[in-house]
Protein backbone atom coordinates (compact mmCIF):
# COMPACT_ATOMS: atom_id res chain seq x y z
CA UNK A 1 0.00 0.00 0.00
CA UNK A 2 1.13 3.58 -0.67
CA UNK A 3 0.26 5.76 2.27
CA UNK A 4 0.40 9.54 1.94
CA UNK A 5 0.02 11.64 5.12
CA UNK A 6 -0.46 15.42 5.27
CA UNK A 7 1.59 16.16 2.18
CA UNK A 8 1.74 19.77 1.05
CA UNK A 9 3.90 21.19 -1.72
CA UNK A 10 4.40 24.70 -2.96
CA UNK A 11 6.48 26.40 -5.61
CA UNK A 12 7.22 29.98 -4.59
CA UNK A 13 3.97 31.23 -3.12
CA UNK A 14 1.80 28.94 -5.26
CA UNK A 15 0.31 26.01 -3.40
CA UNK A 16 0.41 22.93 -5.64
CA UNK A 17 -0.75 20.33 -3.07
CA UNK A 18 -2.57 21.20 0.16
CA UNK A 19 -2.46 18.77 3.03
CA UNK A 20 -3.10 15.59 1.05
CA UNK A 21 -3.75 12.31 2.86
CA UNK A 22 -4.45 9.24 0.79
CA UNK A 23 -4.14 5.47 0.86
CA UNK A 24 -3.56 3.77 -2.50
CA UNK A 25 -4.73 0.14 -2.33
CA UNK A 26 -2.20 -2.64 -2.86
CA UNK A 27 -2.29 -4.88 -5.93
CA UNK A 28 -4.87 -2.73 -7.75
CA UNK A 29 -4.89 -0.27 -10.64
CA UNK A 30 -5.58 3.24 -9.34
CA UNK A 31 -6.26 6.13 -11.71
CA UNK A 32 -5.53 9.75 -10.78
CA UNK A 33 -7.88 12.07 -12.65
CA UNK A 34 -8.47 15.80 -12.55
CA UNK A 35 -8.16 18.93 -14.66
CA UNK A 36 -4.80 20.36 -15.75
CA UNK A 37 -2.92 21.85 -12.80
CA UNK A 38 -4.75 19.71 -10.22
CA UNK A 39 -1.43 18.41 -8.83
CA UNK A 40 -1.61 14.82 -10.13
CA UNK A 41 1.88 14.73 -11.63
CA UNK A 42 3.36 16.54 -8.62
CA UNK A 43 1.84 13.94 -6.30
CA UNK A 44 3.38 11.16 -8.40
CA UNK A 45 6.75 12.96 -8.42
CA UNK A 46 6.71 13.23 -4.63
CA UNK A 47 5.87 9.54 -4.20
CA UNK A 48 8.78 8.63 -6.51
CA UNK A 49 11.10 11.22 -4.94
CA UNK A 50 11.59 13.07 -8.22
CA UNK A 51 10.78 16.13 -6.12
CA UNK A 52 11.75 16.54 -2.49
CA UNK A 53 8.97 16.34 0.11
CA UNK A 54 8.39 19.68 1.81
CA UNK A 55 5.99 18.43 4.48
CA UNK A 56 4.19 15.25 5.42
CA UNK A 57 5.24 11.65 4.86
CA UNK A 58 4.95 9.11 2.06
CA UNK A 59 5.27 5.42 2.79
CA UNK A 60 5.64 2.87 -0.03
CA UNK A 61 5.06 -0.57 1.50
CA UNK A 62 7.50 -0.61 4.40
CA UNK A 63 9.75 2.09 2.96
CA UNK A 64 9.57 5.64 4.17
CA UNK A 65 10.22 7.75 1.07
CA UNK A 66 12.67 10.47 2.02
CA UNK A 67 14.63 8.21 4.37
CA UNK A 68 15.34 5.07 2.34
CA UNK A 69 18.26 4.90 -0.11
CA UNK A 70 17.75 5.67 -3.80
CA UNK A 71 18.64 2.13 -4.78
CA UNK A 72 16.26 0.61 -2.24
CA UNK A 73 13.40 2.76 -3.51
CA UNK A 74 14.26 1.91 -7.13
CA UNK A 75 13.90 -1.80 -6.32
CA UNK A 76 10.39 -1.24 -4.94
CA UNK A 77 8.91 1.53 -7.05
CA UNK A 78 9.30 2.70 -10.64
CA UNK A 79 7.91 5.76 -12.38
CA UNK A 80 7.27 6.64 -15.99
CA UNK A 81 7.67 10.42 -16.09
CA UNK A 82 5.56 12.57 -18.39
CA UNK A 83 8.46 13.76 -20.50
CA UNK A 84 11.46 11.66 -21.30
CA UNK A 85 14.92 12.33 -22.66
CA UNK A 86 15.75 9.12 -24.44
CA UNK A 87 19.16 8.66 -25.95
CA UNK A 88 18.18 7.98 -29.58
CA UNK A 89 21.21 5.83 -30.30
CA UNK A 90 20.17 3.15 -27.86
CA UNK A 91 18.42 0.06 -29.12
CA UNK A 92 15.10 -1.10 -27.67
CA UNK A 93 16.83 -3.87 -25.75
CA UNK A 94 19.49 -1.55 -24.39
CA UNK A 95 16.89 0.84 -22.99
CA UNK A 96 14.80 -1.95 -21.46
CA UNK A 97 18.02 -3.35 -19.91
CA UNK A 98 18.43 -0.12 -17.95
CA UNK A 99 15.44 -1.28 -15.90
CA UNK A 100 17.77 -3.77 -14.21
CA UNK A 101 20.31 -1.12 -13.18
CA UNK A 102 19.02 -0.86 -9.57
CA UNK A 103 19.98 -4.54 -9.15
CA UNK A 104 23.18 -5.00 -11.17
CA UNK A 105 24.67 -1.47 -11.09
CA UNK A 106 26.10 -1.88 -14.60
CA UNK A 107 27.16 -5.53 -14.45
CA UNK A 108 24.17 -7.58 -15.63
CA UNK A 109 23.84 -11.25 -14.65
CA UNK A 110 21.92 -14.03 -16.42
CA UNK A 111 18.90 -13.34 -14.22
CA UNK A 112 18.84 -9.71 -15.42
CA UNK A 113 18.95 -10.77 -19.05
CA UNK A 114 16.04 -13.13 -18.43
CA UNK A 115 14.01 -10.28 -16.87
CA UNK A 116 14.73 -8.09 -19.92
CA UNK A 117 13.67 -10.87 -22.33
CA UNK A 118 10.50 -11.39 -20.32
CA UNK A 119 9.66 -7.66 -20.41
CA UNK A 120 10.26 -7.54 -24.19
CA UNK A 121 7.94 -10.53 -24.67
CA UNK A 122 5.17 -9.25 -22.37
CA UNK A 123 5.11 -5.88 -24.16
CA UNK A 124 5.32 -7.42 -27.65
CA UNK A 125 8.70 -5.86 -28.38
CA UNK A 126 10.79 -8.98 -29.01
CA UNK A 127 10.84 -8.36 -32.77
CA UNK A 128 11.96 -4.75 -32.31
CA UNK A 129 14.66 -5.57 -29.73
CA UNK A 130 17.63 -4.50 -31.87
CA UNK A 131 15.97 -1.51 -33.47
CA UNK A 132 17.28 1.95 -32.48
CA UNK A 133 14.85 4.14 -30.56
CA UNK A 134 14.88 6.89 -33.17
CA UNK A 135 13.44 4.43 -35.70
CA UNK A 136 10.30 3.93 -33.58
CA UNK A 137 7.00 5.80 -33.50
CA UNK A 138 6.02 7.83 -30.43
CA UNK A 139 3.62 5.10 -29.33
CA UNK A 140 6.23 2.37 -29.69
CA UNK A 141 8.73 4.39 -27.68
CA UNK A 142 6.15 4.82 -24.94
CA UNK A 143 5.71 1.07 -24.87
CA UNK A 144 9.47 0.51 -24.70
CA UNK A 145 9.70 2.91 -21.78
CA UNK A 146 6.94 1.09 -19.89
CA UNK A 147 8.67 -2.22 -20.68
CA UNK A 148 11.78 -0.76 -19.01
CA UNK A 149 9.71 0.03 -15.92
CA UNK A 150 8.33 -3.51 -16.04
CA UNK A 151 11.86 -4.96 -16.26
CA UNK A 152 12.65 -2.97 -13.12
CA UNK A 153 10.36 -5.54 -11.48
CA UNK A 154 9.02 -3.28 -8.75
CA UNK A 155 5.97 -3.94 -6.65
CA UNK A 156 4.71 -0.42 -7.33
CA UNK A 157 4.53 1.20 -10.78
CA UNK A 158 3.62 4.86 -11.29
CA UNK A 159 2.77 6.04 -14.80
CA UNK A 160 2.25 9.70 -15.66
CA UNK A 161 -0.06 9.96 -18.67
CA UNK A 162 1.11 6.76 -20.38
CA UNK A 163 -1.57 7.08 -23.06
CA UNK A 164 0.07 10.16 -24.60
CA UNK A 165 1.13 9.47 -28.19
CA UNK A 166 -1.11 6.41 -28.42
CA UNK A 167 -4.00 5.90 -30.81
CA UNK A 168 -7.22 4.26 -29.59
CA UNK A 169 -6.03 0.73 -30.34
CA UNK A 170 -2.66 1.33 -28.68
CA UNK A 171 -4.28 2.97 -25.65
CA UNK A 172 -6.78 0.14 -25.18
CA UNK A 173 -4.22 -2.61 -25.53
CA UNK A 174 -1.81 -0.83 -23.15
CA UNK A 175 -4.51 -0.38 -20.48
CA UNK A 176 -5.59 -4.00 -20.84
CA UNK A 177 -1.96 -5.08 -20.57
CA UNK A 178 -1.40 -3.00 -17.44
CA UNK A 179 -4.52 -4.49 -15.80
CA UNK A 180 -3.27 -7.94 -16.71
CA UNK A 181 0.21 -7.20 -15.31
CA UNK A 182 -1.33 -5.88 -12.09
CA UNK A 183 -3.46 -8.96 -11.70
CA UNK A 184 -0.90 -11.61 -12.65
CA UNK A 185 2.07 -10.12 -10.85
CA UNK A 186 0.03 -8.45 -8.06
CA UNK A 187 1.57 -5.07 -8.81
CA UNK A 188 0.17 -1.81 -7.52
CA UNK A 189 -0.19 0.50 -10.52
CA UNK A 190 -1.00 4.21 -10.26
CA UNK A 191 -1.81 5.95 -13.54
CA UNK A 192 -2.46 9.61 -14.28
CA UNK A 193 -5.19 9.68 -16.92
CA UNK A 194 -6.95 12.52 -18.69
CA UNK A 195 -9.65 10.39 -20.27
CA UNK A 196 -12.18 9.49 -17.57
CA UNK A 197 -13.59 6.72 -19.72
CA UNK A 198 -10.29 4.81 -19.63
CA UNK A 199 -10.21 5.30 -15.86
CA UNK A 200 -13.80 4.01 -15.54
CA UNK A 201 -13.22 1.07 -17.81
CA UNK A 202 -9.85 -0.19 -16.55
CA UNK A 203 -9.12 1.16 -13.04
CA UNK A 204 -10.16 -0.58 -9.83
CA UNK A 205 -9.95 2.64 -7.88
CA UNK A 206 -10.16 6.30 -8.93
CA UNK A 207 -8.82 9.36 -7.12
CA UNK A 208 -10.18 12.69 -8.38
CA UNK A 209 -8.08 15.78 -7.68
CA UNK A 210 -8.67 19.49 -8.09
CA UNK A 211 -6.56 22.49 -7.03
CA UNK A 212 -4.14 20.35 -5.06
CA UNK A 213 -6.76 18.54 -3.00
CA UNK A 214 -8.53 15.18 -3.21
CA UNK A 215 -12.15 15.75 -4.24
CA UNK A 216 -13.34 12.14 -4.31
CA UNK A 217 -12.06 8.58 -4.30
CA UNK A 218 -13.60 5.18 -4.74
CA UNK A 219 -14.51 2.62 -7.37
CA UNK A 220 -15.56 3.95 -10.80
CA UNK A 221 -19.23 3.17 -10.22
CA UNK A 222 -19.11 4.95 -6.86
CA UNK A 223 -17.63 8.25 -7.95
CA UNK A 224 -17.97 8.79 -11.72
CA UNK A 225 -21.21 10.73 -11.93
CA UNK A 226 -22.54 14.07 -13.12
CA UNK A 227 -21.78 15.74 -9.77
CA UNK A 228 -18.11 14.78 -10.01
CA UNK A 229 -17.82 16.14 -13.54
CA UNK A 230 -19.43 19.38 -12.49
CA UNK A 231 -17.42 19.81 -9.27
CA UNK A 232 -14.02 18.65 -10.53
CA UNK A 233 -14.01 19.47 -14.23
CA UNK A 234 -16.60 22.28 -14.27
CA UNK A 235 -18.41 20.64 -17.14
CA UNK A 236 -21.89 19.25 -17.60
CA UNK A 237 -21.76 15.98 -19.48
CA UNK A 238 -24.11 13.08 -19.66
CA UNK A 239 -23.21 9.73 -18.21
CA UNK A 240 -24.45 6.37 -19.38
CA UNK A 241 -23.73 2.93 -18.03
CA UNK A 242 -22.39 0.10 -20.19
CA UNK A 243 -22.10 -3.26 -18.42
CA UNK A 244 -22.20 -1.39 -15.12
CA UNK A 245 -19.29 0.89 -16.13
CA UNK A 246 -20.06 4.63 -16.13
CA UNK A 247 -19.13 6.19 -19.47
CA UNK A 248 -18.98 9.95 -20.05
CA UNK A 249 -20.61 11.13 -23.27
CA UNK A 250 -18.65 14.00 -24.76
Amino acid at each position, binding site marked *: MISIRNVSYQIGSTMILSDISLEIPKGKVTALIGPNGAGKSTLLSLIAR*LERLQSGTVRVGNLLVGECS*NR*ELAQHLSILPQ*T*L*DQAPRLSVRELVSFGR*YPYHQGRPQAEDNRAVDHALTVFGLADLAQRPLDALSGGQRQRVQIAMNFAQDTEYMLLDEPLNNLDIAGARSLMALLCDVSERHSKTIVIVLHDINYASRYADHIVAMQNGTIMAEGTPSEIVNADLLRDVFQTNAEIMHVDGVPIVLV
Partner: protein
Amino acid sequence: MNRRLIWLAVILFVCSVAYMSVGARGPLSFVLPFRGAKLAALILVAVSVSTSTVVFQTVTQNKILTPSIMGFDALYVLILTGAVYSFGGMVVFGFSDQFVFAVSASSMTLAALILFSTMLQSAKADLLRLVLTGVVLGGLFRALTDFMQRIIDPNEFAVIQGASYARFSVLETDLLMIAAATCIISMILLWRMRFALDVIVLGREAAVNLGVNVKRTQLLVLMLMSVLVAVSTALVGPIAFLGLLVVSVARLVTPVEQHGVLLVSASLISAITLIGGQTILERVFRLSTPLSVVIDLLGGALFLILLLRGYRR
Protein backbone atom coordinates in the same frame (compact mmCIF):
# COMPACT_ATOMS: atom_id res chain seq x y z
CA MET B 1 33.06 -1.63 -31.58
CA ASN B 2 36.05 -3.32 -29.95
CA ARG B 3 37.69 -3.63 -33.36
CA ARG B 4 37.44 0.14 -33.85
CA LEU B 5 39.07 0.72 -30.48
CA ILE B 6 41.89 -1.64 -31.45
CA TRP B 7 42.41 0.26 -34.70
CA LEU B 8 42.56 3.54 -32.81
CA ALA B 9 45.10 2.04 -30.42
CA VAL B 10 47.21 0.90 -33.40
CA ILE B 11 47.09 4.39 -34.94
CA LEU B 12 48.09 5.90 -31.60
CA PHE B 13 50.99 3.48 -31.35
CA VAL B 14 52.20 4.46 -34.85
CA CYS B 15 51.90 8.17 -34.01
CA SER B 16 53.83 7.64 -30.77
CA VAL B 17 56.62 5.77 -32.55
CA ALA B 18 56.79 8.53 -35.17
CA TYR B 19 56.88 11.19 -32.45
CA MET B 20 59.72 9.42 -30.69
CA SER B 21 61.78 8.64 -33.78
CA VAL B 22 61.27 11.20 -36.58
CA GLY B 23 64.19 13.60 -36.76
CA ALA B 24 65.88 12.12 -33.69
CA ARG B 25 69.56 13.02 -33.61
CA GLY B 26 72.11 12.48 -30.89
CA PRO B 27 72.47 9.71 -28.30
CA LEU B 28 69.38 7.63 -27.64
CA SER B 29 70.07 7.76 -23.89
CA PHE B 30 69.20 11.47 -24.12
CA VAL B 31 66.54 11.46 -26.86
CA LEU B 32 64.37 8.66 -25.47
CA PRO B 33 63.85 10.02 -21.92
CA PHE B 34 63.53 13.58 -23.26
CA ARG B 35 60.92 12.78 -25.86
CA GLY B 36 59.36 10.06 -23.69
CA ALA B 37 58.54 12.59 -20.97
CA LYS B 38 56.98 14.90 -23.55
CA LEU B 39 55.01 12.02 -25.01
CA ALA B 40 53.72 11.08 -21.57
CA ALA B 41 52.70 14.69 -20.92
CA LEU B 42 50.86 14.86 -24.26
CA ILE B 43 48.99 11.63 -23.49
CA LEU B 44 48.11 12.90 -20.02
CA VAL B 45 46.75 16.18 -21.38
CA ALA B 46 44.92 14.42 -24.23
CA VAL B 47 43.16 11.95 -21.92
CA SER B 48 42.37 14.63 -19.33
CA VAL B 49 40.81 16.92 -21.92
CA SER B 50 38.74 14.21 -23.63
CA THR B 51 37.57 12.65 -20.35
CA SER B 52 36.58 15.99 -18.87
CA THR B 53 34.64 16.91 -22.02
CA VAL B 54 32.76 13.59 -22.24
CA VAL B 55 31.62 13.74 -18.62
CA PHE B 56 30.81 17.45 -18.80
CA GLN B 57 28.61 16.87 -21.87
CA THR B 58 26.87 14.02 -20.04
CA VAL B 59 26.04 15.89 -16.85
CA THR B 60 24.96 19.02 -18.75
CA GLN B 61 22.99 16.86 -21.24
CA ASN B 62 24.41 18.91 -24.07
CA LYS B 63 26.75 17.63 -26.73
CA ILE B 64 28.16 20.93 -27.94
CA LEU B 65 29.48 22.10 -24.60
CA THR B 66 33.05 21.91 -23.43
CA PRO B 67 34.44 22.68 -19.96
CA SER B 68 36.30 25.70 -21.31
CA ILE B 69 32.91 27.41 -21.60
CA MET B 70 32.91 27.53 -17.80
CA GLY B 71 35.71 30.09 -17.84
CA PHE B 72 38.51 27.80 -16.61
CA ASP B 73 41.00 29.02 -19.18
CA ALA B 74 40.11 32.61 -18.41
CA LEU B 75 40.69 31.95 -14.71
CA TYR B 76 44.11 30.47 -15.47
CA VAL B 77 45.20 33.59 -17.38
CA LEU B 78 43.66 35.78 -14.67
CA ILE B 79 45.65 34.03 -11.93
CA LEU B 80 48.82 34.42 -13.96
CA THR B 81 48.17 38.07 -14.76
CA GLY B 82 47.03 38.83 -11.21
CA ALA B 83 50.24 37.37 -9.83
CA VAL B 84 52.39 39.40 -12.24
CA TYR B 85 50.33 42.51 -11.52
CA SER B 86 50.65 42.12 -7.75
CA PHE B 87 54.19 40.82 -7.32
CA GLY B 88 55.90 41.74 -10.59
CA GLY B 89 57.07 39.45 -13.37
CA MET B 90 60.53 38.87 -11.88
CA VAL B 91 59.07 37.47 -8.69
CA VAL B 92 56.38 35.35 -10.34
CA PHE B 93 58.56 33.79 -13.00
CA GLY B 94 61.27 33.35 -10.37
CA PHE B 95 59.07 30.91 -8.46
CA SER B 96 59.61 27.24 -9.08
CA ASP B 97 57.41 25.63 -11.72
CA GLN B 98 56.00 23.30 -9.10
CA PHE B 99 54.86 26.24 -7.00
CA VAL B 100 53.17 28.06 -9.90
CA PHE B 101 51.55 24.78 -10.99
CA ALA B 102 50.30 23.99 -7.49
CA VAL B 103 48.88 27.49 -7.01
CA SER B 104 47.15 27.71 -10.38
CA ALA B 105 45.77 24.14 -10.35
CA SER B 106 44.49 24.39 -6.79
CA SER B 107 42.97 27.86 -7.35
CA MET B 108 41.07 26.59 -10.38
CA THR B 109 39.84 23.50 -8.53
CA LEU B 110 38.85 25.62 -5.54
CA ALA B 111 36.95 28.08 -7.76
CA ALA B 112 35.10 25.18 -9.38
CA LEU B 113 34.33 23.67 -5.97
CA ILE B 114 32.80 26.94 -4.74
CA LEU B 115 30.82 27.47 -7.96
CA PHE B 116 29.47 23.94 -8.29
CA SER B 117 28.75 23.26 -4.65
CA THR B 118 26.89 26.51 -4.06
CA MET B 119 24.85 26.27 -7.24
CA LEU B 120 24.03 22.57 -7.09
CA GLN B 121 23.14 22.64 -3.40
CA SER B 122 20.24 24.98 -4.02
CA ALA B 123 16.81 23.35 -3.84
CA LYS B 124 16.37 23.28 -7.59
CA ALA B 125 19.68 22.33 -9.15
CA ASP B 126 19.71 24.01 -12.50
CA LEU B 127 22.62 23.09 -14.74
CA LEU B 128 21.75 25.64 -17.38
CA ARG B 129 22.04 28.37 -14.76
CA LEU B 130 25.33 26.87 -13.64
CA VAL B 131 26.74 26.89 -17.17
CA LEU B 132 25.54 30.43 -17.81
CA THR B 133 27.12 31.55 -14.53
CA GLY B 134 30.35 29.96 -15.74
CA VAL B 135 30.10 31.84 -19.04
CA VAL B 136 29.48 35.14 -17.24
CA LEU B 137 32.34 34.53 -14.81
CA GLY B 138 34.59 33.68 -17.79
CA GLY B 139 33.69 37.08 -19.27
CA LEU B 140 34.41 38.77 -15.96
CA PHE B 141 37.79 37.03 -15.64
CA ARG B 142 38.74 38.06 -19.18
CA ALA B 143 37.72 41.66 -18.52
CA LEU B 144 39.76 41.78 -15.29
CA THR B 145 42.72 40.19 -17.06
CA ASP B 146 42.45 42.70 -19.87
CA PHE B 147 42.34 45.55 -17.37
CA MET B 148 45.44 44.38 -15.52
CA GLN B 149 47.33 43.63 -18.72
CA ARG B 150 46.82 47.22 -19.86
CA ILE B 151 48.54 48.64 -16.82
CA ILE B 152 51.46 46.27 -16.42
CA ASP B 153 54.89 46.58 -17.97
CA PRO B 154 54.84 45.75 -21.74
CA ASN B 155 57.68 43.21 -21.34
CA GLU B 156 55.80 41.34 -18.66
CA PHE B 157 52.69 41.53 -20.81
CA ALA B 158 54.58 39.74 -23.58
CA VAL B 159 55.56 36.94 -21.19
CA ILE B 160 51.96 36.50 -20.02
CA GLN B 161 50.75 36.58 -23.60
CA GLY B 162 53.11 33.73 -24.43
CA ALA B 163 51.87 31.69 -21.48
CA SER B 164 48.22 32.30 -22.42
CA TYR B 165 48.34 29.88 -25.36
CA ALA B 166 48.67 26.16 -24.98
CA ARG B 167 52.15 25.00 -25.89
CA PHE B 168 52.81 21.38 -26.53
CA SER B 169 56.42 21.83 -27.60
CA VAL B 170 57.64 23.38 -24.35
CA LEU B 171 56.04 21.09 -21.81
CA GLU B 172 56.61 21.38 -18.11
CA THR B 173 57.86 17.82 -17.81
CA ASP B 174 59.16 18.50 -14.27
CA LEU B 175 55.57 18.64 -13.16
CA LEU B 176 54.62 15.44 -14.90
CA MET B 177 54.67 13.12 -11.91
CA ILE B 178 52.47 15.22 -9.67
CA ALA B 179 50.11 16.09 -12.55
CA ALA B 180 49.91 12.45 -13.62
CA ALA B 181 49.13 11.26 -10.10
CA THR B 182 46.36 13.84 -9.68
CA CYS B 183 44.81 13.14 -13.07
CA ILE B 184 45.02 9.36 -12.83
CA ILE B 185 43.20 9.34 -9.48
CA SER B 186 40.44 11.55 -10.95
CA MET B 187 40.21 9.36 -14.06
CA ILE B 188 39.96 6.14 -12.05
CA LEU B 189 37.12 7.63 -9.98
CA LEU B 190 35.32 8.82 -13.13
CA TRP B 191 35.83 5.43 -14.80
CA ARG B 192 34.18 3.75 -11.80
CA MET B 193 31.16 6.03 -12.32
CA ARG B 194 30.78 5.12 -15.99
CA PHE B 195 27.61 3.05 -15.50
CA ALA B 196 25.94 5.81 -13.48
CA LEU B 197 26.88 8.22 -16.30
CA ASP B 198 25.20 5.87 -18.81
CA VAL B 199 22.01 6.17 -16.75
CA ILE B 200 22.28 9.96 -16.46
CA VAL B 201 22.22 10.17 -20.28
CA LEU B 202 18.57 9.07 -20.03
CA GLY B 203 17.72 12.29 -18.19
CA ARG B 204 17.38 13.30 -14.56
CA GLU B 205 13.98 11.76 -13.88
CA ALA B 206 14.82 8.41 -15.46
CA ALA B 207 18.09 8.33 -13.51
CA VAL B 208 16.35 9.06 -10.20
CA ASN B 209 13.86 6.32 -11.05
CA LEU B 210 16.74 3.90 -11.56
CA GLY B 211 18.20 4.69 -8.14
CA VAL B 212 21.03 7.06 -9.11
CA ASN B 213 21.66 9.93 -6.73
CA VAL B 214 21.78 12.43 -9.57
CA LYS B 215 22.76 15.53 -7.63
CA ARG B 216 25.61 13.81 -5.80
CA THR B 217 26.86 12.18 -9.01
CA GLN B 218 26.74 15.50 -10.88
CA LEU B 219 28.64 17.29 -8.14
CA LEU B 220 31.28 14.58 -7.91
CA VAL B 221 31.69 14.41 -11.71
CA LEU B 222 32.02 18.18 -12.00
CA MET B 223 34.59 18.25 -9.20
CA LEU B 224 36.72 15.53 -10.77
CA MET B 225 36.32 17.17 -14.16
CA SER B 226 37.55 20.48 -12.78
CA VAL B 227 40.65 18.76 -11.37
CA LEU B 228 41.39 17.34 -14.84
CA VAL B 229 40.84 20.68 -16.57
CA ALA B 230 42.84 22.58 -13.95
CA VAL B 231 45.80 20.22 -14.13
CA SER B 232 45.92 20.04 -17.93
CA THR B 233 45.55 23.82 -18.25
CA ALA B 234 48.30 24.40 -15.69
CA LEU B 235 50.50 21.90 -17.55
CA VAL B 236 50.24 23.20 -21.12
CA GLY B 237 48.03 26.30 -20.99
CA PRO B 238 44.45 26.85 -22.08
CA ILE B 239 43.02 24.64 -24.85
CA ALA B 240 39.56 25.76 -25.83
CA PHE B 241 38.26 23.42 -28.50
CA LEU B 242 40.35 20.24 -28.37
CA GLY B 243 37.77 18.49 -26.17
CA LEU B 244 34.82 19.38 -28.37
CA LEU B 245 36.71 18.34 -31.51
CA VAL B 246 37.86 14.94 -30.29
CA VAL B 247 34.65 14.00 -28.49
CA SER B 248 32.56 14.86 -31.57
CA VAL B 249 34.87 12.69 -33.69
CA ALA B 250 34.68 9.92 -31.06
CA ARG B 251 30.87 9.98 -31.23
CA LEU B 252 31.13 9.46 -34.99
CA VAL B 253 33.75 6.72 -34.82
CA THR B 254 32.10 4.83 -31.94
CA PRO B 255 28.40 5.78 -32.13
CA VAL B 256 27.28 4.34 -28.80
CA GLU B 257 26.06 5.80 -25.54
CA GLN B 258 28.12 3.59 -23.20
CA HIS B 259 30.72 5.62 -21.37
CA GLY B 260 32.95 2.56 -21.09
CA VAL B 261 33.47 2.76 -24.88
CA LEU B 262 33.14 6.52 -25.35
CA LEU B 263 35.73 7.47 -22.73
CA VAL B 264 38.28 5.09 -24.26
CA SER B 265 37.65 6.10 -27.87
CA ALA B 266 37.68 9.84 -27.07
CA SER B 267 40.95 9.42 -25.16
CA LEU B 268 42.57 7.51 -28.03
CA ILE B 269 41.40 10.05 -30.62
CA SER B 270 42.53 12.92 -28.42
CA ALA B 271 45.98 11.40 -28.00
CA ILE B 272 46.22 10.69 -31.76
CA THR B 273 45.28 14.33 -32.51
CA LEU B 274 47.85 15.79 -30.12
CA ILE B 275 50.72 13.40 -30.80
CA GLY B 276 50.07 13.06 -34.54
CA GLY B 277 49.48 16.80 -34.93
CA GLN B 278 52.54 17.70 -32.92
CA THR B 279 54.72 15.25 -34.91
CA ILE B 280 53.54 16.67 -38.22
CA LEU B 281 53.83 20.32 -37.21
CA GLU B 282 57.04 20.12 -35.21
CA ARG B 283 59.00 17.33 -36.88
CA VAL B 284 57.78 17.13 -40.47
CA PHE B 285 56.92 20.70 -41.43
CA ARG B 286 59.20 22.21 -38.79
CA LEU B 287 56.57 24.84 -38.11
CA SER B 288 56.67 26.86 -34.94
CA THR B 289 52.91 27.45 -35.03
CA PRO B 290 51.46 26.16 -31.78
CA LEU B 291 49.30 23.08 -32.41
CA SER B 292 46.63 24.59 -30.17
CA VAL B 293 46.04 27.35 -32.74
CA VAL B 294 45.32 24.73 -35.44
CA ILE B 295 43.14 22.69 -33.06
CA ASP B 296 41.21 25.76 -31.99
CA LEU B 297 40.67 26.72 -35.61
CA LEU B 298 39.29 23.27 -36.48
CA GLY B 299 37.39 22.94 -33.19
CA GLY B 300 35.93 26.43 -33.49
CA ALA B 301 34.73 25.69 -37.02
CA LEU B 302 33.18 22.42 -35.80
CA PHE B 303 31.49 24.24 -32.92
CA LEU B 304 29.90 26.68 -35.36
CA ILE B 305 28.77 23.83 -37.63
CA LEU B 306 27.20 21.96 -34.69
CA LEU B 307 25.56 25.15 -33.50
CA LEU B 308 24.14 25.96 -36.93
CA ARG B 309 22.85 22.42 -37.33
CA GLY B 310 21.16 22.75 -33.95
CA TYR B 311 22.90 19.61 -32.76
CA ARG B 312 22.23 19.38 -29.08
CA ARG B 313 21.21 15.89 -28.14
